[in-house]
């Protein structure tokens, strides 16, 4: 804060605002923290005071073959979705970075719009369309739909990284005799590497948590979030907390990895600009 603003400061108001920040974060983290705490709590209908410490709910999900199957599906779908989305997103980001062409606005709209369509509508459209072309009711249909939603995230992350690159770098490689393909391999890809890995992890994390579209199209090959939805519909049980905590730790590991990659060497040069 500079001098002029300092004169106009009011301590009480500042404290009130900071207190409000704390309150806002408390609201956001209350359900997350509670889910974590109650996943270790013995009560069938969780509330306070807390029951005993117990790993029952973890044991319950660990011995449930349906949960294992869901976890396997989630993991398989997530990894494939991550790889495919990142490849498609990289291509789109590079296209936007390098080329100007008629209809580019439409191209970018297609590349970025899908996440703004409500998942329930996307789910219905996907279900109807994929079952028409005989692709619904299996893991492949979940993969296809998730890539539609995840590729835009990959595109955005990688595009951001490309905008930090010196635009003269690629032409310099060509002038030195590199072909376009060689420049891609030795200049562009290494420069984007942290963002590519970041996009890979973020899109995997998005896929791990997506339940609505997956619920519509998965048929019998349910992913873990769809199972959770099933638990919510049926006998509500603290198993949800145990699954939630488990998936949360998995997702956060991926996000922190992505964060470390994105804010490592690359971000520093960007901050100076």
């Amino acid at each position, binding site marked *: 804060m*500079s001098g*002029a*603003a300092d*004169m*106009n400061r*009011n301590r009480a108001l500042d404290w009130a605002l*900071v207190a409000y*920040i704390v309150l*806002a974060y408390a609201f*956001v983290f*209350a*359900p*997350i923290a*509670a*889910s974590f705490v109650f996943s270790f709590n013995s009560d069938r*209908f969780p*509330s*306070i005071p807390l029951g005993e410490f117990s790993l029952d709910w973890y044991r319950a999900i660990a011995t449930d073959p349906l949960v294992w199957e869901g976890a396997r599906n989630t993991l398989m779908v997530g990894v494939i979705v991550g790889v495919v989305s990142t490849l*498609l*997103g*990289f*291509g789109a980001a*590079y296209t936007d970075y*390098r080329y*100007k062409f008629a209809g580019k606005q439409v*191209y970018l709209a*297609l*590349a970025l*719009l*899908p996440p*703004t*369509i*409500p998942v*329930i*509508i*996307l789910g*219905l*459209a*996907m*279900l*109807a*369309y994929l079952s028409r072309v005989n692709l619904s009711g299996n893991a492949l249909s979940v993969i296809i739909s998730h*890539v*539609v939603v995840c*590729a835009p995230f990959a*595109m955005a992350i990688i595009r951001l990284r490309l905008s930090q690159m010196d635009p003269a770098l690629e*032409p310099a490689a060509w002038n030195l005799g590199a072909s*376009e393909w060689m420049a891609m391999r030795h200049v562009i890809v290494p420069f984007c590497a942290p963002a590519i890995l970041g996009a890979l992890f973020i899109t995997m994390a998005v896929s791990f*948590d997506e*339940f*609505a579209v997956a619920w519509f199209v998965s048929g019998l090959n349910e992913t873990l979030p769809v199972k*959770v*939805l099933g638990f*919510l519909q049926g006998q509500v049980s603290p198993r*949800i*907390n145990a699954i*939630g905590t488990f998936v*949360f730790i998995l*997702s956060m590991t991926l*996000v922190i990895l992505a964060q470390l990659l994105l804010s490592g060497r690359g971000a520093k040069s960007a901050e100076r600009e």
Partner: protein
Amino acid sequence: MRRPISLYGLTFSLPLLIWQVLFFVFPLVFLVALSFWTVKNFVMRPDFDTVNWTTMYGRTVFWQAYGTTLALAAAASVLTSVLAFPAAYAVAFKLSDTSRRWAVFLMVIPFFTSYLVRVYSWQTFLSDNGIINVILSWIGLGPFVMLNTVGATMIGYLTLSFPLVVLLQLFSLVFIDRTLIEAAHNMRCGRLRTVFEVVIPSARTGLVIAALFCFILSFGDFVSPVYLGGGEPTTLSILITDTTKSGQQWPRAAVIALTMIGTLMVVAFVAVKFAYKGKSK
């Protein structure tokens, strides 16, 4: 930068284009066609019949759900924006750079937790024997019925969009030219007046876009109205899932979905128009 179409360029640009046309544009276009199909004996048949549109639009239930959904989503956008603004403002102007970076990082975390799990967790807080009622009973209040109310649905909508709205507001506030604020202070403009006449107008684009995102998210969400609101009153999202999952009435569900898309497009158009009003870029 100027070479036209080449194999090299197409290798990078085509895959996404093909994927999104095949699996994003086509499904949405197919939804339009589907809305004109007919269902006989639980079997769908390609057709060109407006019966689904007339049936759905002729039902009071549909219009009631439509009104409810619009009202709930509008209320959620206003409520979320108003509650998020002081937090975004405080993070933007009252925290050090380091704390602000932490604040942003913490607000990103909810995106990677399951929304379903958070909604289930809110049930633990709001139910008749839940955490809030237990705490209230210690001071001799309650119990209050909080679960399966519209208020609970609102808490769900807040859970869904509050972090996103705070972040979007924050990014627009951070980019405000600080000299404008100092100028207002130097001219003895009061703090509150500065907020309303300098800060909010300068950040208008971001604030409106944030509210728009909240509207879109709440408008299409079926989890909060069902698992926190108890399914009453019926929203369009509930109507879609019911129509899709029970019986083969996909064409009617398509009518609801297309009506929702149409509504969202109008709302988004108006909001974007307002957000960028009087700006060259």
